[in-house]
């Protein structure tokens, strides 16, 4: 199982790489908004954070008393963004395969079906990947393969 998990991780990395290469290789794909729009770099990386929080990201507290406190608030915001972004990168690499298939099939499936299969974190494919990674993690940690082989 650990082997499968690492193979999926590698395939996900290579899919990211291949998508970028192919968009450069066949220039007509860049003109196709449905293809190039879905892969625009950093296009909505804050969406998952803001939607999860269900409000805009604002600095804490009331009025800014002095310049020092403004500086600390800016540093806080930078840290929050940094942590959120790192987390998104990790998710992209761990679940990039599912995400990629989801983007490509979004035009072909009915919205309800798509949500059942590919909604971020809770879709069926994401749950399968959670199980794969947890099993692989346990087998890497304990040295025992849970699948019995």
């Amino acid at each position, binding site marked *: 199982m650990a082997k499968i998990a690492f*193979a999926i991780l*590698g*395939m996900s*990395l*290579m*899919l990211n*790489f*291949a*998508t970028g*290469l*192919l968009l450069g*290789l*066949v220039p*007509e*794909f860049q*003109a*196709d908004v*449905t*293809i190039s729009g879905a892969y625009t770099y950093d296009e909505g990386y804050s969406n998952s954070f803001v939607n999860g929080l269900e409000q805009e990201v604002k600095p804490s507290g009331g009025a800014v008393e002095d310049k020092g406190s403004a500086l600390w608030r800016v540093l806080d915001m930078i840290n929050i963004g940094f942590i959120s972004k790192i987390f998104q990168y990790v998710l992209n690499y761990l679940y990039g395969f599912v995400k*990629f298939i989801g983007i*490509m099939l979004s*035009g*072909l499936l009915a919205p309800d079906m798509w949500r059942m299969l590919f909604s971020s974190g809770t879709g069926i494919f994401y749950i399968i990947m959670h199980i794969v990674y947890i099993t692989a993690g346990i087998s890497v940690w304990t040295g025992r393969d849970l699948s019995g082989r």
Partner: protein
Amino acid sequence: MVMEYLPVNTTGWTELMRGDIITASFIMFDSALLGWTIAILFFVHQLILYMKARNLTLNFIMGSFFVSMYLSAKAISLFPVIQPLASNVMFLLLVLELASILFYAFWR
């Protein structure tokens, strides 16, 4: 489907009356398959090439030529009936091929 809702020239009669029989038959099939003809041809081409040569790199290179030519022809609107998702599906197959090549080259 009611005839007047179809775009002009989806039956291929115009080409047939001109004596352009290849274009006429292509347009007829393309209308009947709702614009998926090129994608189906692409899949058949890739499948036959893979069965014959068993070489994924060759498949990818020939496939990217095929798709480039199709998209150039689409840009000058040679095809009257075009399925917008056809290029997405071909893009998916090409990306999977290239990712497999890179996977076997760098990860295995």
